[in-house]
């Protein structure tokens, strides 16, 4: 009896973890692509995710859009902002010392957070309910409709991303730039444009994650991007930074670990778990889980 309820709780946390993890994975993809291409930890990425959530909020409340138009709208807004940030803040620093770029990224992140606070007030807002909440029971396990939406949308986006990176011309160019920027430039690839494009894709994925989180937790605020942003970075490192499948696996894995820690130990240790994983990975396998096996990195 005791054991069966434990396994049941385990599988329940597994389900929660996978849906949370696929959100981490979406954000982690942006980190990993940007890192793969210009070796920059884009600290502002978590705030792009916040921005996406707000864009989705305004799209659904003021423009009365339904889920899919709102999703597209916020992805477009976020990718525009992402490209703008790259153009204004990071491009002037191409070739500058790494620390200068990292500090700029922290600056951009603070600017988005507190600029956002000024624009939309620091009060949390209630995200409109876009789907009627239905819960399904499978053998005592509870799955709700939001979790299913999260899973379907993030899987679809990851599928599209994989296709773009592996089977289109632009994807080929991205892989080339990430492999060797100078050689790619010599081959006639417009490197700046590809970097812009990478920021656009990464930002749009983060925006999608923002909307999904809005639907899942019903509440958004200007500082919501900090923790998920950091954790998504941990996920990217866990999977092997620069490796696209690594970010997906790392994200889901991190989500599952967090859910298990908060389910079986204590929810206050949840945040610590991610950072402990980060330290352990950095110390013992800095290349990440997939760092060696897969050469391809974007």
């Amino acid at each position, binding site marked *: 009896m005791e054991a069966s309820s434990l396994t049941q709780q385990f599988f329940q946390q597994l389900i929660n973890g996978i849906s949370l993890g696929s959100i981490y994975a979406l954000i982690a993809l942006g980190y990993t692509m940007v890192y793969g291409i210009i070796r920059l*930890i884009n600290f502002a990425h978590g705030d792009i995710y916040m921005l996406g959530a707000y864009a989705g909020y305004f799209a659904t409340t003021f423009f009365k859009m339904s889920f899919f138009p709102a999703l597209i709208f916020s992805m477009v807004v976020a990718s525009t902002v992402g490209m703008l940030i790259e153009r204004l*803040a990071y491009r*002037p*620093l191409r070739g*500058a*010392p*790494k*620390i*200068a*770029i*990292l*500090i*700029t990224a*922290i*600056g*951009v*992140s*603070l*600017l988005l*957070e*507190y*600029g956002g*606070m*000024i624009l939309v007030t*620091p009060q949390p807002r209630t995200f409109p309910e876009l789907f009627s909440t239905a819960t399904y029971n499978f053998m005592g396990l509870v799955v709700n409709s939001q979790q299913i939406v999260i899973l379907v949308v993030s899987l679809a986006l990851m599928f599209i991303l994989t296709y773009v990176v592996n089977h289109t011309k632009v994807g080929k160019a991205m892989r080339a730039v990430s492999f060797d920027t100078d050689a790619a430039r010599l081959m006639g690839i417009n490197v700046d444009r590809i970097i812009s494009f990478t920021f656009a894709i990464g930002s749009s994925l983060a925006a999608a994650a923002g909307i999904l989180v809005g639907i899942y937790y019903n509440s958004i605020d200007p500082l919501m991007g900090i923790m998920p942003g*950091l954790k998504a*970075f*941990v996920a990217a*490192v866990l999977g092997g930074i620069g490796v696209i499948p690594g970010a997906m696996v790392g994200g889901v894995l991190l989500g599952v670990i967090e859910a298990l820690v908060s389910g079986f130990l*204590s929810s*206050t*240790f949840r*945040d*610590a778990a*991610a*950072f*402990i994983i*980060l*330290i352990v990975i*950095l*110390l013992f396998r*800095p290349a990440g889980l997939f760092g060696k096996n897969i050469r391809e990195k974007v």
Partner: protein
Amino acid sequence: MKRDLMGIVGAVALYALLMGLIESEVIGAFWQLNIVLICINIILAVSLNLITGFTGQFSIGHAGFMAVGAYLSAVFTVKLGLPYIVGILAGAAGAAILGFAIGLPTLRLKGDYLAIATLGLGEIIRITILNIPYVGGASGLMGIPRYTTFTWAFFLMVITVLFIKNFINSSHGRACISIRENEIAAEAMGVDTTKYKVIAFTIGATFAGVAGGLFSHYFYIAHPASFTFMKSFDILTMVVLGGMGSITGSITTAILLTYISAELASYPEWRMVIYALLLIVLMIYRPQGLFGNKELSLKLFSRILGGGQRGAAENK
């Protein structure tokens, strides 16, 4: 040595001046609080500058060491009823031990990986404290007596600046700077890079612990929310704006930024937006910070500021 003495004399003069202004109530309670905050921030910025500016090891976990100092010193004074100085020393020692224990494994990492690892460690420290009921958990450790006075804050600040300045000018300090300039070359010249990185990290952590002790004994409370990585960013901003590798730079920006945030106390968002814009614009147009790695000299200083505010800084 002569310069140190002059610095101390200058510091005492400045202290007498400020104390006179406080006693005669020219400086009200609000600015008195901010002067103590300035002293604490100078300790934090200068100690982080030793790690990040002089040794070149990028750390975003400084608030974690500050938290250790704040809590440990409060435990010694509140729970064990020991005198304040013992609390401060215990806080510093605790932060030092932790800095050593953390520095030894993580300083193998470089650049942005080290930054992210220190950020994570700072958060781990904070979350661990959050989960210790003995020190109040999420609601913080309350009922700490206000032992920190202007005198304590000021002289601990002077000691910190003098210590770090003399450390940098010693052969150990030169070794640290050589690591920043070129780690491989330093190693080839026989500098034990790991040793010096850990030394710099430990000293930085120690003084962050001191600042934490001052902090919690001034604001009656040690609360986990005061030591998030936003606090670390705050300290880092001071170091970067002032110039990595410039003590006087850190002191100037610590004063400047504390002043700005005091003036903008009722608009905290604008304060952070200004910080952010300063960081971005500075990195694009002057990545070495306001002072670069130069120090203000006594002469230049007295000319600019007319005898100036910060005696402790003048002893270069």
